[in-house]
């Protein structure tokens, strides 16, 4: 069996084929095209041309893509949304979309309904669902929305009402997809509702991506099962991705982190992915990217669904170095993919980070005109570049101890043999396409995030319950029940509620049960 992995980034589309032992058969890097699919097609063609694989052996094809992120940022191809908030009598002082950028609100042409319902923090209902309100809402939505987002008060504690409302709409408007907030975000109604609305808005986009990817495979006579990379570094089936397109956002950096883990055999390390324009720094915790616990903005909208904890620096191979007030300034502007014509060593006019690395002898480049660098004090500038990365590594560490640092990405060679704070530096083979490898490999995950009250229950009992729920979710998504590991287990106390309420967050993951792809 062969796995095909493709990662579409802002600059490059990377592809890789892996054999049954997950060894790299071949890999490619091509510029990302405006119509993303032609780049994907090129990648698949190149992979097949440079290897002797039999297309019938390619059973799994995974795609990590920036389509959804771009759609939100560019406000393109988004669905018309029906927003239901199950909250009355609460919630009226902050209706949906209050804090959204205006141009995005215009695109959604939202129809909004606040209806009765919601739960207290302990799961007791504030009030029940009112049937007449549902009937009214159906009429409001009929023929004017393509996708529905449902958010209920304290649905992370109990999701029954959200499901009840969803079932009603499923029956009345059977062709309209529904997104439930309890399956997407955590406590913090506004941020969770925002993420759910964004998810609903991406339904067309993800459908188009899946169809395009399938077509690109069929064009090469590949009949593989399709998976999508998601932003916790695991895979989701196509069916799952159609329900939760928002989980593809920020999957690029997590693919790199997963790929770095696999290539370096490290399960706990800092991963530094240096590209042409930016350096993304993430943390491997038990083999998976660490998540952030803070609200994250997506296209100007504040959300609280799980996102990787990534620190981005404006530093890459094409980053410009300028002299300002007799001090050397690194970036943030970059010549990006124009490095081969703009850099000094290639006869260009711009001093770049790559020039500096070549000047100090850290990198060798073919046809480099090194005499161009004679007037540049590269020995003085280079330590500044290194220090930027060292500071960022320090920021992402979880303790004062030195850690292993895995360098990946096209710009990994810019870095010296040692870095402050690094116990050792690993530069794995195929580091340039770590992201495509990460996409190809992905495990299947399951999560559980709930509030529990410890009034009449033991701490270990609720933790066990949350674990089992996460494990069940992973099995349902296609993970091998015999190989599931717990990769994250945290609980946080909720302030000001006597009676000890805790928020428990569990994530488990395991490899694909391969029977499911036979």
């Amino acid at each position: 069996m062969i796995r095909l992995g493709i990662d579409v980034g802002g600059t490059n589309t990377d592809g890789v084929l892996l054999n049954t032992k997950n060894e790299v058969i071949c890999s490619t890097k091509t510029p990302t095209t405006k119509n993303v699919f032609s780049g994907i097609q090129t990648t698949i063609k190149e992979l097949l041309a440079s290897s002797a694989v039999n297309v019938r052996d390619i059973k799994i094809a995974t795609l990590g893509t920036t389509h959804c992120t771009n759609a939100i940022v560019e406000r393109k191809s988004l669905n018309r949304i029906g927003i239901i908030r199950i909250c009355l009598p609460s919630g009226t002082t902050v209706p949906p979309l209050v804090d959204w950028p205006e141009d995005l609100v215009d695109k959604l042409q939202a129809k909004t309904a606040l209806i009765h319902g919601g739960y207290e923090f302990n799961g007791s209902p504030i009030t029940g669902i009112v049937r007449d309100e549902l009937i009214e809402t159906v009429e409001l939505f009929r023929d004017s929305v393509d996708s529905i987002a449902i958010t209920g008060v304290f649905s992370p504690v109990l999701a029954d009402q959200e499901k009840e409302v969803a079932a009603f709409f499923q029956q009345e408007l059977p062709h309209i997809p529904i997104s439930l907030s309890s399956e997407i975000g955590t406590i913090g109604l506004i941020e969770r509702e925002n993420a759910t609305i964004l998810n609903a808005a991406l339904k067309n986009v993800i459908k188009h991506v899946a169809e395009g990817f399938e077509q690109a495979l069929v064009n090469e006579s590949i009949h593989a099962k399709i998976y999508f990379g998601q932003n916790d570094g695991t895979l989701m089936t196509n069916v799952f991705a159609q329900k939760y397109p928002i989980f593809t956002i920020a999957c690029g950096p997590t693919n790199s982190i997963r790929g770095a883990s696999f290539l370096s055999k490290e399960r706990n390390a800092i991963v530094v992915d240096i590209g042409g324009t930016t350096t993304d720094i993430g943390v491997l915790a038990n083999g998976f990217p660490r998540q952030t616990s803070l609200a994250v903005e997506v296209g100007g909208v504040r959300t609280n669904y799980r996102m990787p904890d990534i620190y981005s620096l404006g530093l890459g191979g094409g980053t410009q170095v300028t002299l300002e007030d007799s001090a050397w300034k690194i970036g943030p502007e970059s010549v990006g993919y124009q490095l081969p014509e703009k850099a000094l060593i290639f006869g260009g006019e711009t001093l770049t980070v790559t020039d500096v690395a070549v000047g100090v002898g850290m990198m060798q480049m073919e046809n480099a005109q090194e005499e161009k660098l004679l007037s540049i004090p590269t020995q003085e500038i280079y330590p500044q570049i290194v220090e930027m990365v060292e500071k960022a590594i320090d920021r992402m560490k979880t303790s004062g101890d030195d850690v292993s640092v895995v360098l990946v990405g096209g710009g990994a060679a810019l870095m010296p043999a040692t870095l402050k704070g690094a116990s050792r530096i690993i530069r794995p083979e195929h580091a340039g396409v770590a992201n495509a490898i990460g996409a190809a490999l992905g495990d299947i995950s399951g999560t559980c995030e709930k509030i529990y009250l410890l009034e009449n229950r033991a701490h270990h009992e609720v933790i066990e319950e949350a674990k089992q729920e996460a494990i069940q979710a992973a099995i349902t998504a296609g993970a091998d029940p015999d190989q599931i590991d717990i990769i994250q287990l945290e609980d946080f106390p909720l302030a000001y509620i006597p009676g000890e309420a805790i928020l428990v967050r569990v994530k488990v993951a395991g490899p694909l049960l391969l029977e499911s792809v036979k």
Partner: protein
Amino acid sequence: MKWLNEEDIEHIAIGASVLGTGGGGDPYIGKLMALHAIRKYGPVQVITMDELKEDHWIVPISGMGSPSVLVEKIPSFEMLMAPLLAYEKASGKKIDIVMPIEIGGVNSLIPVAVAAMKGIPILDGDAMGRAFPEAQMVTFHLDGLKPELVTIADEKGNTVTIEPADGHWSEKIARSITISMGGSSIVADYGVTGTQAKKSVIPGTLTLAKKIGEILKQPRNGAVHPIEQMLTLLNGHQLFRGKAVEIKRGIEGGFTRGKAVFEGSEENNLDSCVLSFQNEHLLAEINNKPIAMTPDLIAVLDEETGMPITTEGLRYGARVIIVAFPANERWRTPIGIETAGPRYFKYPYDYTPLEILIKEFVPS
């Protein structure tokens, strides 16, 4: 008389995070409530202490309970109004002006939403000059005033009117009612006349929060660092610059109590700073010696952006600047120290003012 617009609300939210000293609830939801109320009902008039008339009837309004509940079960407009209506009914007097009970965190902006809806002004002042976790930690209490009347409402249409014996009982009873209401409520208490307000209220704090927000939000053009400008405005001091290396949190009696340990950067090398918090930051120690303590204010700011970080948002690796500024003189009196000093929060120190601790401090 001034008016608050949408931009002012953004600035107050940032300033309220600084004055919230790490606690007081995330002002974000309060900001959204205030913004939406202003869009719906029009801008809010701000009345200064100098403009108060003796017979004005001023009632503080605030949210009580868990910030985690407030951000999930968001108040309704009826819930914002109910405590005021009950207050008017029980006192037999029409409310002229609302005011924030505290200026730190979410409660700086909830009264703005109320003022917009009721169409009455908000007072430029509060009863803490910061955020504190308990209801009796207000200047009215320091002046021996009792919250003779307290009204509490939830979103379900429940309104409770109590006549507590004193501030401590008010806190106890109101909190247990809040819990039975589902963990968050809107409270009106300590209604005062203009004459009493002039005695007890800390003036200008709403404007102060706005100014802090304006300073921290301004573009960096290199002249004077925004944090420097803010410290000048607040007579504050930079205590420490470094990185969070350990955060311990636990729950005690419904409050998040914990410690955050910071490691110094080059300029105070080898030093370590420990912050102790109970929702708010209450004690800062450098090399095991106290350098700032409650009721003085301690705030943690992101080194890069200058934006305040809450105790909940603080994580390992955060590079921060820790600052402190003196509390209002009202808190530095014997009763102020008894009410909200270090011993009340079970820290083993007698209160020493920030400026004295700074002067006595000898770096290692």
